[in-house]
């Protein structure tokens, strides 16, 4: 049963997964290319100075990519469920409905994780060839909130798609905008380090929003 559900989610999202993966890797490679160009023009010392003195991670051009990846994956996964109220078929499956929803979300989170890991790997591995490890660690810690924002965006997209009431959709959209803005408000290196565990817990708890949307669908509040 679990394998069948994973397959179903994969059929819906595989195109979105491969597109977001390809785009993320391309942009990450381009970010690495920019660093390479700077080193060629001004030397590696100059690069380190910019990172340390100007808090520049050279990854700023990819900071919105995880968020967009999350949105695309969430819509690709949940929009087909709401089209023609196909969610009724899913809810009719002989599986406890909370377990079913959590499995569906787990598939999306796993796909987002692969995309983000690929993106982080390109940046991290390249940076290690031109910067000392502590500096790379600092850059990776700085980019971490963007990836958490990607998971949050995914969970918000799922909840908004599953929500059948337009009024609630707008409410969830506003909540999403407010929460996601928090991930991008501090540009300094490692500015989120102390706050990150709270953001992680808040992001994980967003799965409840999808469960709420599903319950309201089940009770006919969408009819």
């Amino acid at each position, binding site marked *: 049963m679990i394998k069948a559900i994973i397959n179903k989610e994969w059929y819906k999202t595989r195109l979105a997964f491969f597109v977001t993966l390809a785009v993320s890797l391309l942009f990450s490679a381009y970010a690495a290319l920019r660093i390479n160009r700077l080193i060629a023009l001004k030397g590696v010392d100059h690069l380190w100075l910019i990172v340390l003195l100007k808090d520049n991670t050279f990854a700023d051009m990819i900071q919105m990519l995880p968020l967009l990846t999350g949105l695309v994956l969430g819509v690709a996964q949940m929009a087909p469920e709401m089209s*023609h109220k196909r969610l*009724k078929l899913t809810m009719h499956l*002989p*599986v406890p409905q909370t377990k079913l929803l959590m499995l569906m979300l787990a598939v999306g989170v796993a796909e987002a994780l692969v995309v983000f890991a690929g993106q982080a790997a390109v940046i991290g591995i390249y940076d290690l060839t031109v910067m000392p490890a502590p500096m790379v660690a600092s850059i990776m810690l700085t980019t971490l909130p963007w990836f958490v924002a990607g998971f949050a965006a995914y969970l918000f997209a799922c909840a908004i798609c599953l929500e059948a009431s337009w009024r609630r959709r707008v409410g969830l959209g506003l909540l999403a905008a407010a929460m996601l803005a928090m991930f991008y408000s501090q540009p300094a290196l490692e500015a989120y380090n102390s706050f990150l565990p709270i953001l992680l817990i808040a992001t994980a708890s967003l799965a409840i929003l999808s469960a709420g949307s599903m319950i309201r669908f089940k009770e006919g509040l969408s*009819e």
Partner: protein
Amino acid sequence: MHTDTEPIISVRNLTQRYGKGRVIYSDLSFDVPKGRILGLLGKNGTGKTTTINILMGYLRPQSGECRIFGEPITEMQPATRARIALLIEGHVQYSFMTISQIEKFYSAFYPKWNRDAYYGLMEKMHVSPGQKISTMSCGQRSQVALGLILAQNADLLVLDDFSLGLDPGYRRLFVEYMRDYVKAEGKTVFMTSHIIQDLERLIDDCIILDYGRILTQQPVAELMKGYPQGTTLEDVFIELTGKY
């Protein structure tokens, strides 16, 4: 615990409105005993799909109680859902899957799954296992949905307006397949339709709904006794509900 003598579906004093407005029906009560086929008939907008939504737990009724296999529908367990085959209005299925993917998907959930019943029907359509459902015609999609229902081998079949979007040929095919299957296997069926002519040879009992009220509720044979020979169920329906 549900016993064989108890009705498969039991509905008591069901009342439902559109939001806080128009009454769809009030005090609707009926039973569907084991092995019977009940048709809920009515024009568009009389509450047929609403009733299915209530029975399947997708809509909370304003008042009344519904039980399926003795279980209140609000607390339906996964094992009970496994005994019910559901056809959603418009033959909606997972159209992003192919013929073979969808069969493999559903087979994982139903212990009595009959793969041959599904592929037997697919062979008649001359479609390849790799064909995506979204690329099929409405008639072909209806056959996929029918094939999945037959393969599930459920005790109760709930079919919401199976005739929607189908041309007469596919409607006839659907009815004939369904009739042979439910009679041979002793299945219980609850179905809705707004095209009455298809149902005459299929249903045992009928409930005819009008806007805001129940016009009649009885076995088809009994209903037809009150009319001259040669009268069809469609004629009776039109007489009761008025012309479209």
